[in-house]
Structure formats: structure tokens, C-alpha cells
């Protein structure tokens, strides 16, 4: 961390350009926008959207991914759709959602979910295809309930895929949410970042970025790492 700041300071001092402000300036900006409550407000708005759309996308995505991974017929049918949805530009889904449903919060969330969902499905589907047949046979022959099979046999095997999807998913949603906010919300990080971009206020951009990264780091440390540790304690 300190290394990072040191390098940054050195670079900033060397270039002495307003396109790369020093850590001190960024820290000041950061502090000010915290005090005015601006940063917490916009960060909060974005985080709320992130949590809601992330939860929906992960839940739906895991469910669909497992179903498609286990059912060849359904998979063949939906595969094309998946590729289409996976590759429709974020911009297009966002615009269409807004135009059809209005500039409302749910349209924004829907747009994010539509962008993230196919990713989750694809990852979980690969994971489901790689499931250990031996263990599934065991579950079947011992008459485990659907629920038990899912929770105790399938889910732990999907864990690395779910973690992969979660980590890169948080990042992806965060990228998309910015565009969503840019195009149709009056608050949130995307709205603010665009404003700063117009004013070419790099210090503020960096301050906001740092705030966001810090939050994600917190999520990583408080939620993902412990989850990982718990789920993987059995590994030698």
C-alpha cells in the first residue's frame, strides 16, 4: 500500500501535471467531499443499486446456469440466446430499458441485471458441466433430496466458479452501473464521474475511485475472504 502511494507520489512529482495530481491533493479532495456529504451520498446510491442488481443477477444466474449445465436439451435451445444477450452492447440494453420503461430506478436495475446475468450463467454453466459424476451418483443412489444434493453435493463444487463470478461480477456491475447512471440517473458515482470528466477534474475522479475501491476491498475482506476460508477449510 505504502509502496503504491510512494510510486504515485514520485510519478506525480516527476510529471507535475494536473492530469496526475499528487496523493496529498487527492486526499484533500476526498476529505472535502466526505465532509460535504457528497461522496457518501453518491457512493451510497451506487452501492444500493450494486447490491440489488448483483443479488438478482447472481441468484438468477446460478439457478439458470445450473439448469443449463445439467440439461443438454434446454442448453442447446438457450445457447444462442445466451450468446446474443452476452454480446448485446451494454449501451443498447441500457437505452432500450430506459426508453421502454422510463427513467425509473427499476429500469436502471433491470439494465444492469441484463448485462451481468449472461456472464454468471456462462460461468456457472461451465462449472456445472465439470461436476463430479461419482458424487452425483452417490447422491442419487442414497436418495438425497433435491435440496440436499444442490446444497451439499453440487454447490461446494461450484464454489470456485461462484467466487470467480462474484469477484469479476462485482467489477463488471460496477463498470455497467456507471454507464447506467450516466445515461439516466441524477445521482450515483457514474453521474459524478462524468461531471468530473467534463471538468477534467482528475483529482476528484481519483478520490471517488479510491472510495469505491476501498468499499470493494472491504467487501472482499469482510465477506468474500471469510467465505472463501470457510468453504475451503477442507482442502489440504
Amino acid at each position, binding site marked *: 500500500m505504502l509502496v503504491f502511494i510512494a510510486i504515485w507520489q514520485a510519478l506525480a512529482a516527476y510529471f507535475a501535471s494536473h*492530469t496526475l495530481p499528487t496523493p496529498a491533493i487527492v486526499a484533500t479532495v476526498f476529505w472535502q467531499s466526505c465532509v460535504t456529504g457528497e461522496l457518501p451520498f453518491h457512493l451510497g446510491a451506487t452501492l444500493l443499486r450494486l447490491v440489488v442488481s448483483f443479488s438478482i443477477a447472481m441468484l438468477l444466474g446460478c439457478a439458470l446456469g445450473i439448469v443449463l449445465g445439467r440439461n443438454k436439451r434446454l442448453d442447446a435451445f438457450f445457447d444462442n440466446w445466451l450468446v446474443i444477450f452476452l454480446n448485446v452492447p451494454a449501451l443498447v440494453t441500457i*437505452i432500450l430499458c*430506459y*426508453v*421502454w*420503461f*422510463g*427513467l*425509473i430506478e427499476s429500469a436502471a436495475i433491470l439494465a444492469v441485471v441484463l448485462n451481468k446475468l449472461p456472464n454468471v450463467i456462462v460461468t456457472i454453466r461451465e462449472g456445472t458441466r465439470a461436476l463430479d459424476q461419482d458424487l452425483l451418483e452417490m447422491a442419487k443412489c442414497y436418495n438425497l433430496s433435491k435440496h440436499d444434493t444442490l446444497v451439499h453435493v453440487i454447490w461446494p463444487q461450484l464454489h470456485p466458479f461462484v467466487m470467480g463470478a462474484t469477484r469479476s461480477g462485482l467489477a463488471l456491475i460496477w463498470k455497467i452501473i456507471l454507464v447506467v*447512471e*450516466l*445515461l*439516466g*440517473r*441524477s*445521482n450515483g458515482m*457514474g*453521474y459524478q464521474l*462524468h*461531471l468530473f*470528466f*467534463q*471538468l*477534467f*477534474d482528475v483529482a476528484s475522479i481519483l478520490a471517488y475511485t479510491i472510495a469505491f475501491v476501498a468499499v470493494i476491498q472491504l467487501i472482499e475482506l469482510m465477506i468474500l475472504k471469510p467465505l472463501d476460508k470457510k468453504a475451503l477449510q477442507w482442502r489440504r
Partner: protein
Amino acid sequence: AEEKTVIRVGVQAAGTLEWELTALQDDPAVKASDFQLKIEHLANAEAGKIALQSGAVDMIVSDWVWVSSLRADGADFTFYPYSNTSGALVVPENSTIHSIEDLKGKHLGIAGGELDKNWVLLQALVKKSNLNLDASVKKTFGAPPLINEQIKQNRVDAVLTYWHFAARLEAQGYRQIIDGKGILKGLGISENVPSIGYVFKQSWAENHKQAIKSFLAASKKAKNQLCVSDDAWQKIIPLTHVDDVPTQKILRQRYCEGGVEQWGDKEQQAAARIYEMLRSVSNKKLTGQSEHLQTGTFWAVK
């Protein structure tokens, strides 16, 4: 008392409309009038277009070419002038470029894209001196803030950019070669044709004629106020997000120069001519298929 008409206006963050509406709401007379403003903050122009079409706002500021192409598609949006400030071609102070002919062989940064109105018109202008600008300069298109950075880092020789970005450069000593108005003049159009204006649904406007009229009048008054009263100007300075005085000054100057004094048949006919020029130079890309400016593009206030 009668219900006040609510007018929802989509306002671009840090844009001049925000200054104006803020000043307007400070005006005690507005409180008594027959409309009530509701301001929706939006991040950029595209967000405004989405907001208008999805019905989230009643009114945004945009350009008339777009309104015409919408009308050609059957939508009933209409336009009322707001400002005629326009972008400009800017070069560093010590640049060897002194006229548009000097651009030949130079590296030009263009904000927006190849369908930027000023870029299209500039090509038309240069064509008069038998020069194909499109072929004879090296172009870099990009977002306006990035284009500004490019010239500051001497990666391009000249930039054609939006007016407030040009104003910022000017405040730092950059030289303006020509602006949008100048280009039009060179093309033989001496009328002051507004570049941007309020865009709203015609049907909606017909239903709330009176309120809209008062709003438009109040908006004009507010603009005047900003230009004549330093007090009023001081109040909105935070909204410019600029903290050096020279830039503030030039922003105010350019903004006030953009006031629309005249708006009648003559100007509208000039607009129609500009339209046809844009259409032929941009190869219909900017305007769409429609041959002429759609009737009804400009709101006929009666």
C-alpha cells in the same frame, strides 16, 4: 387559485441551462407565475435525449437538426431557440495557423465525431477554396475533455471543440481562428441562427401554452440578469465549477454573446438553408433521409 403547470426540465450538470434556471428560481416574480419548475439533473446530452423520449422530463435543450429528424420519423417534438453560442476552432498562441486554409497537412482534434455540425460546416467552407479538408488534415476525434488535453500536450495542432471547452482554452491564451458563427458567415448565412434550443412535445406545449410562454420569458429574463447583474453572476459562479477568474470571465462573455435577439421567418429560412447544406456535406448522415427541414420543427408561438 389555479393549479400551477409543472414543467419538468432535464438539465445537464454544469451546463449553462443550470445557471439560468438557478437564477430564474431566485427571481421573486417567478413564484407568482403560472408554472412550477422541476429540475432533473442529467449527466450528458444523451441522457437528456433518453429522458425526453421516455417521458421522464418535458423539456430539454438540444439542437434543431435532431428535432427535424425526429419529426421525419413521426414524433411530434418541436424546438424553441435557447442560445446561439457555437463551438470554435482554437490553436495555441504561437501557432503558425492563422486561417482555416493553414490547416492543410496539420493534425486537427475534433470534439464529438465526424457528424459534429461545426466540422461538417467547416468542410463546406473550406471546399469553397477548393480544398478537401477531410482528406488534407490528420483528424483525431474524441471526447471534448480529452481533445482539450491533446492540444495542451501538443499532440494536435488545432482543435475544433464545443464553446465552453474553447472558452477554457482561450482563457489560457489559446487563439480562436473561427467560431461557428464565423463559419456560417463564410458560407453566406449572416442571420443569427440559434444552435440549440428547448425541445419539447408539441402536443404538450399546445395544452400548456400560457405556462410555457411565461417560462420562456422568465428564462430570457434570467439570462439577461446574469449578463447585466454582477450580483446574479456571482451567485451562480459555483455552478460553473471553474475557479480561475479569467476563465469565468470568458465563459460569461461567450454565454452572453449567445443570446437570441432575433427569431423570425428570416432566421428560420436560414436554418432551412443550413439544413440543406448539412445534408449534402454529411451525405445525409447527420440529417437522415428527409430532404428538407420538417415543417413544425420550430415552435410557432402564437
